[in-house]
């Protein structure tokens, strides 16, 4: 299960990145536009949502609960410094996916208790895509979080995030983590669409082994 998180580079705009991810077969997109104005974000979001609908992809937006509600996106991803989950749930109601960011098992448990639908857990390793990161988790970090989740019967999906490349995917899935969030590794590839396709095939083939 792959989530693509939008980003921009010298070559590609946010919207380009979403378009390429969808073309490569990704069916779960998070629009993240750090430091963008609300008007800029709204216009990109509307277009990204249209592309996702055409592709039957799930479309969620980072942080901006009001925008999610306004345009009827599929959900929101809340970072640690964003709106609390209960508040977002109160505004959005039950018909929206709410994801949260975790760095430790305690974060995961807190998010679970507050009613998130999935958790983005990381960073796996150091990444330049995001500033102000928490300590890195590595494979051992994921193993220990998955074990403790099982012990406490916490059954929400956890998506690994942060500096993940193709080579890491099989090992991360082996820890019991449900999915992978990617951004930089796709956009840095020579052919991002092909890279996305390769990553999705890699993940799907992992399931058969």
């Amino acid at each position: 299960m792959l989530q693509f998180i939008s980003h921009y580079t010298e070559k590609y705009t946010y919207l380009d990145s979403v378009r390429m991810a969808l073309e490569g077969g990704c069916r779960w997109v998070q629009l993240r536009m750090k430091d963008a104005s609300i008007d800029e974000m709204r216009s990109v979001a509307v277009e990204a949502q249209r592309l996702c609908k055409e592709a039957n992809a799930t479309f969620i937006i980072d942080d901006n609960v009001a925008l999610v509600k306004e345009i009827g996106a599929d959900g929101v991803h809340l970072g640690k410094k964003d709106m609390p989950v209960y508040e977002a749930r109160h505004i959005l109601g039950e018909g929206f996916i709410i994801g949260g960011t975790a760095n430790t098992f305690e974060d995961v448990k807190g998010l679970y208790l507050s009613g998130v639908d999935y958790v983005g857990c990381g960073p796996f390793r150091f990444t330049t895509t995001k500033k102000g990161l928490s300590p890195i988790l590595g494979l051992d970090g994921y193993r220990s979080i998955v074990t403790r989740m099982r012990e406490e019967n916490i059954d929400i999906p956890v998506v690994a995030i942060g500096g993940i490349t193709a080579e890491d995917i099989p090992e991360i899935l082996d820890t019991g983590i449900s999915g992978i969030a990617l951004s930089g590794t796709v956009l840095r590839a020579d052919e991002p669409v092909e890279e996305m396709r390769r990553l999705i095939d890699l993940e799907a083939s992992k399931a058969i082994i």
Partner: protein
Amino acid sequence: MKVIINNKTTETSAKTLFVLAEEMELPQKGVAVAVDNKMIPRAEWESTVLSENMNIVIIKAACGG
């Protein structure tokens, strides 16, 4: 048949993802499902046939809170 839903082995009589979603009373909106690590759009739930030990991940708007 036994399938794995969010890392938990679960018994179901459902033959397709669509029927499983009905059994689990998944809401019409705010749900995303992956089967064997691949996201399956709602439009394909009916044609997605379940098999033994299939790995299903359900992201859904929590009910009740």
